[in-house]
């Protein structure tokens, strides 16, 4: 069976290598992608249009902000779908405990170290989120670090410890709030007269110029993204490690 499956794989490989002869060289500054007017517009005009130094964040949150909204929706879908698939199905516990599950006490060194580290990690997560305008970072990255801090709490103690701080209904509510923030900024711009996600229209309610309105709206949008990613990361961990039961786990 494994040798038969090599045939389509090798076929695809030959096809891809056939195409590789036409590619531009590695790092060619004259390649069509690098010379394209759209990319040049992004590099030249990001500072002028949005006053954000990080071009990637500007393209992500402003020029192609609609894609990012659907990316956030994809994360939300993953959380809901995992809940939908695993909810109520792991109820029956055959016997007491399976062979690979052991009872473990939280270790004192680990708990004390984690107790010191988690606040620092969370502040770092806020920094990554907010500083995404100026350095590499942004909503997704900051959200993941924040979610990881909750997972660290769940690993060092047990899952109930983390669930007390971030229960699953609260996770879902925060995730929905993140999308509401993102779409809400879009709706606000639409009601103020522009298209959906046209942040410049927000200057009519905020006391800043059009460009700074984009700057601030981008930050708002990234905060929304961060909310959703944080809560869904933790919800995914909680559901996957306990097969939906939310008892026991890693």
């Amino acid at each position: 069976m494994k040798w038969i499956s090599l045939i389509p794989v090798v076929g695809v490989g030959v096809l891809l290598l056939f195409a590789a002869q036409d590619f531009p060289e590695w790092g060619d500054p004259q390649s069509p992608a690098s010379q394209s007017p759209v990319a040049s517009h992004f590099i030249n005009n990001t500072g002028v249009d949005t006053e954000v130094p990080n071009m990637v964040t500007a393209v992500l949150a402003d020029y192609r902000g609609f894609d990012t909204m659907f990316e956030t929706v994809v994360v939300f879908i993953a959380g809901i779908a995992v809940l939908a698939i695993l909810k109520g199905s792991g109820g029956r516990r055959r016997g007491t405990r399976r062979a690979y599950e052991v009872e473990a006490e939280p270790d004192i060194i680990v708990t004390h170290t984690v107790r010191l580290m988690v606040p620092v990690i969370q502040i770092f997560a806020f920094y990554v989120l907010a500083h995404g305008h100026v350095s590499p970072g942004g909503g997704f990255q900051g959200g993941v670090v924040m979610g990881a801090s909750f997972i660290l709490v769940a690993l060092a103690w047990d899952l109930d410890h983390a669930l007390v701080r971030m229960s699953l209904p609260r996770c879902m509510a925060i995730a929905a709030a993140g999308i509401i923030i993102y779409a809400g900024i879009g709706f606000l711009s639409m009601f103020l007269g522009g298209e959906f996600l046209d942040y410049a229209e927000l200057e009519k309610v905020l006391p800043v110029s059009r460009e700074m309105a984009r700057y601030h709206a981008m930050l708002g949008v990234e905060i929304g993204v961060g909310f959703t990613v944080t809560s869904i990361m933790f919800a995914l961990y909680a559901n996957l490690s306990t097969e939906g039961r939310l008892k026991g786990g890693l």
Partner: protein
Amino acid sequence: MDNAIAWILLFPLIGSIACALLGMVNRKLCYPISVLSMVAATWASVETLFQAVASPTAEVSYIFGGWVLDLFPRGVGIEFRADLLGALIALVVVGVGLIVSMYAKLPVEKETPRKEALYYPLFLLQITGLAGIALTGDAFNLYVLIEVAALTGYGLIAIGSNRAAAATFNYLILGTIGASLYLLGVGYVYIKTGTLNMVGIQEVIATNGLHDSPTMQVAFVLIGLGILIKMAFFPFHAWLPNAYSSAPTTTSCLLAPLVTKVMIYVMIRMVLTVFGVEFSFESTLWSEFMPWLVVIAIVCAAVMALAQREIKKMLAYLIVAEVGYMVGGVWIYNYYGFIGSIFHIISDACMTLCLFLATGIILRACKTTHFDGLRGLFSKMPLTMIGFFVGGFSIIGLPPTCGFFSKWYLITGGMVAERWEYMVVLMFSTMIMVVLFFRLIERIHLAVSESGEDLGKGHGDLGLTKEQTTFEEAPLSMLIPLLLAASIVMIIGIYNQEVVDQIELFLAPFNLPKGTGH
């Protein structure tokens, strides 16, 4: 309202977030919220269609973020372009979504109890994804929306039984291969053209003369392969029968009419708008051998449908055969073939919807969809069976249902393009479908079981209890959507000339051959 095209997606999005939040509080709120948001989205979609018809360039263009600049009339950001084809398909998607959301109340309560707050958000987000695929004008945004539709689809199917979870895993692996191949193809296009806007790509191909570039040819193959896997074209169809027959009722009513058809729309969009007619038909070899692959696909799918003893699996194989029709309609490179293909997308969505809605009602009433369990249904649920057989006759292609007209155009296209293999296989599969549906009528009326036993005492006695033959029609919330769908099938058939006029308006600038192409 200029923002109508954005509202088509935004209403279901708001609805799904509202369902997710309010559903945690009270489960009963989800159903009214979903129906309301679908009504609003249907209104926005009708509005967009009227705007597209009324506009001088026959399209509505909406740039998100307002990034219209003088140098870039097509915008620097993401564009939503609702030309006539896109607006029609979006209306079909949202309309089917509205009917299924009206239908969804009882099946969702019964088959996935206590999970409504998770089901309805996935449902509404699926419709958002599919409507977005129909409207977008940016190649990478299309990938993101395909993934939205796919992920919600996996969730909607696997929320049912364990069998559904196993089928979904297979679907996930194949679907991810398909979507990733599409992404790789878009990457190849980007590395050669430098833009992601669909119309922009065609302009760059034309100005830079990339017709013979091996990269673009391979990109076309990769995108085509990815889309073919996602639309369940034989032999990549392996995921479809298991996934759709083990899914919960409402899920199969939503996914079966829409997902594969929207992927065919994507193929038409890639062929006509992104790569252009010259590139797709003259620079590549696809139009030579695709009709033969289509012949094999339709024959195998129809024969496998004949072998089934259960309605849902039979309908799933019928979907694979219908996909074969539409792919063939595109690749015979003919004006009438394209009209037939596009009209078949619309009519197939409606008739598949009809069939699956009726199957759901039958499953609920008889607890089985096996052919043996259907005896006596004509006296028990006559209206449901009328709905079912309107869909069935449309698949066969009897006038005045819409299936007749779409088959008419497809056969005309095959004849005019002198692709006799396609025409013959269309007629052959029509015969098989006649056998399928009339066999079903026979089973319901006659007293012979599938394994050949005689039932009853002869003379039409089916050996049924009084309860099984008294009139007990389906509940209204399931019956009215079915009758609506059946009437839409008839209405589209009767008023087909209006729809075909719009399709012809859309196809006019492409200058497809009306006589022999090859």
